[in-house]
């Protein structure tokens, strides 16, 4: 049997069911490795002693019917966990202990999983490199001083470094798929409405979705099956018939039509990305898919649209952090002064920048010119996809326009940071599912990902395509444990 922390989720489950491994052995192995890996700064809060207790409890009365029997899992610190501090990577929530559990994490614990800890992320999930977290930068296990992507950067780092067998993140404009791409892992953003948003710290409510992150496609299918559910507590949760994603997973994608959007060939895209994409097309053909050229004409307007819609929703959502009822408070001379000081000291620079953009585009006299305009363009972007899906079953693109960059490289230029999400943002705007799978490395040896975008509610097809291509690509991360 291979080293515990190197096993996939499916292997660990198999070993628990066959009584070759106990929950305690597995939990201890991941804790031990996590403790040796503090330099990565992947965790904000650990739950190790509680996890040990829960593992012992599981072993005393094991239930092998569970989908995640006694499996320890660390999650992004954007999910409210009852009794365990939840910070959203912000100073303003640095002392917040929720009295309720998010639905997606509850779904995991109901299937036997054990909370290992809370993982670092960009503040309120606003960032593409995990450099906006109040709790510091996260290291990418691929190479020292490399960003792990963002905003689910603690999640991608912990996953690639084998500190957790799988994890969950949230994706508003690419925050699952981009960090997955930067760390050579798999990340899936489900259809809007598939996973409940109840108990997830809100960023942009019409775009936010939780999703699985894993080292392989089969694990992602299983974790999605656990976390996706209809939930009365989220008014945008959708009651559709969910597939049994893991048992229906197949590598037979013969005859599926995969579209290649011409507009994703953006100016200045490195030739390595172009080559990777071509290779991906060849793999898809080898797998039996039919390749069809398609057009998504409004692609270039997706990022500008996103940078109106997301900050507008964020400025409204974050109005609740005023120092009155909970969270950080800075005392002021009067009420207004208290509000202003609390928010000025409690939020970091990127969050403040986005709140100000949002306030501006929603302010009197500018609403029509910005917000309304953006919602109209969003309609056009969605229509592009609707039209494309009359001809194809899924769409294949690169996940990101580059591989991971150095810590500090883009922090002074917000627009160049935003450009990271150029291939992922349209998917959120249209509410579609998308998955990023590792597909190769660049000259520097850093991972590059390919993205498969599906029709609404058709996670099964993109999982199947990813599963089939994964076999052909046969990607393996080369991680040297340089931080230990």
């Amino acid at each position, binding site marked *: 049997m291979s080293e515990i922390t190197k096993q996939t989720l499916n292997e660990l489950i198999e070993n628990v069911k066959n009584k070759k491994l106990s929950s305690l052995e597995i939990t201890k192995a991941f804790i031990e490795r996590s403790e040796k890996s503090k330099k990565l700064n992947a965790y904000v809060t650990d739950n190790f002693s509680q996890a040990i207790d829960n593992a012992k409890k599981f072993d005393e009365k094991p239930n092998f019917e569970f989908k995640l029997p006694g499996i320890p899992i660390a999650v992004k610190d954007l999910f409210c966990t009852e009794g365990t501090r939840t910070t959203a990577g912000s100073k303003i929530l640095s002392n917040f202990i929720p009295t309720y559990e998010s639905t997606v994490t509850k779904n995991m614990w109901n299937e036997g999983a054990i909370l290992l800890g809370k993982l670092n992320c960009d503040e309120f999930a606003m960032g593409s490199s995990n450099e906006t977290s109040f709790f510091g930068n996260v290291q990418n296990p691929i190479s020292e001083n490399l960003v792990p992507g963002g905003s689910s950067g603690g999640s991608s780092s912990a996953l690639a470094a084998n500190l957790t067998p799988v994890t969950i993140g949230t994706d508003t404009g690419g925050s699952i798929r981009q960090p997955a791409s930067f760390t050579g892992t798999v990340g899936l953003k489900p259809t*809007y409405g598939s996973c409940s948003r109840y108990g997830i710290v809100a960023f942009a409510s019409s775009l936010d979705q939780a999703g699985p992150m894993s080292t392989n496609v089969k694990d992602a299918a299983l974790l999605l099956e656990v976390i996706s559910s209809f939930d009365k507590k989220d008014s945008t949760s959708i009651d559709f018939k969910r597939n049994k994603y893991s048992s229906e997973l197949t590598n037979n994608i013969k005859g599926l039509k995969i579209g290649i959007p011409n507009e994703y060939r953006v100016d200045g895209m490195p030739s390595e990305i172009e080559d990777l994409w071509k290779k991906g097309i060849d793999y898809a053909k080898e797998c039996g898919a039919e390749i069809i050229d398609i057009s998504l004409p409004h692609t270039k*307007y997706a990022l500008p649209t996103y940078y109106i819609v997301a900050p507008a929703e964020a400025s409204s959502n974050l109005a609740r952090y005023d120092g009155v009822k909970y969270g950080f*408070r800075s005392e002021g001379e009067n009420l207004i002064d208290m509000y202003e000081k609390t928010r000025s000291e409690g939020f970091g620079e990127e969050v403040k*920048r986005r709140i*100000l953009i949002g306030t*501006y585009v929603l302010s009197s006299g500018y609403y029509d010119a910005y917000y309304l305009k953006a*919602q109209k*363009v969003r309609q056009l972007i969605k229509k592009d996809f609707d039209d494309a899906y009359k001809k194809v079953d899924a769409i294949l693109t690169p996940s990101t326009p580059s591989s991971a960059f150095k810590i500090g490289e883009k922090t002074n230029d917000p*627009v160049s940071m935003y450009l990271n999400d150029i291939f992922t943002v349209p998917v959120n705007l249209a509410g579609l599912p998308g998955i990023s799978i590792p597909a190769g490395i660049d000259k520097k040896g850093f991972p590059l990902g390919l993205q498969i975008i599906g029709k609404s509610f058709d996670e099964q097809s993109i999982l199947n395509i990813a599963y089939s291509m994964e076999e052909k690509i046969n990607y393996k991360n080369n991680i040297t444990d340089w931080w230990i």
Partner: protein
Amino acid sequence: MTIDLKTVKHISKLARISVDEKKANKLAGDLNSIFEFIEKLNELNTENVEPLTSVANTTLRFRKDEVESKNIREKILSNSPDNNKDFFVVPKVVE
């Protein structure tokens, strides 16, 4: 369209975020480069396009107005910013 110092100060007032002169200058620069990028949308004629209100073709569900979580007084009070165990004590917000 350029965002000047006066506008930055105005929107920070609206957003209840205090900014000093130096920060306001930096923010004006950042916001201008972001809005320059956003202005690209003006190339598009959207006169006859309906704004998107929801990505999913659904309407909000109705539910009965019933209390579902009961007896959670202590849980709620546990997040009170003041140590008082019986009341949720907050700063005075109404003059």
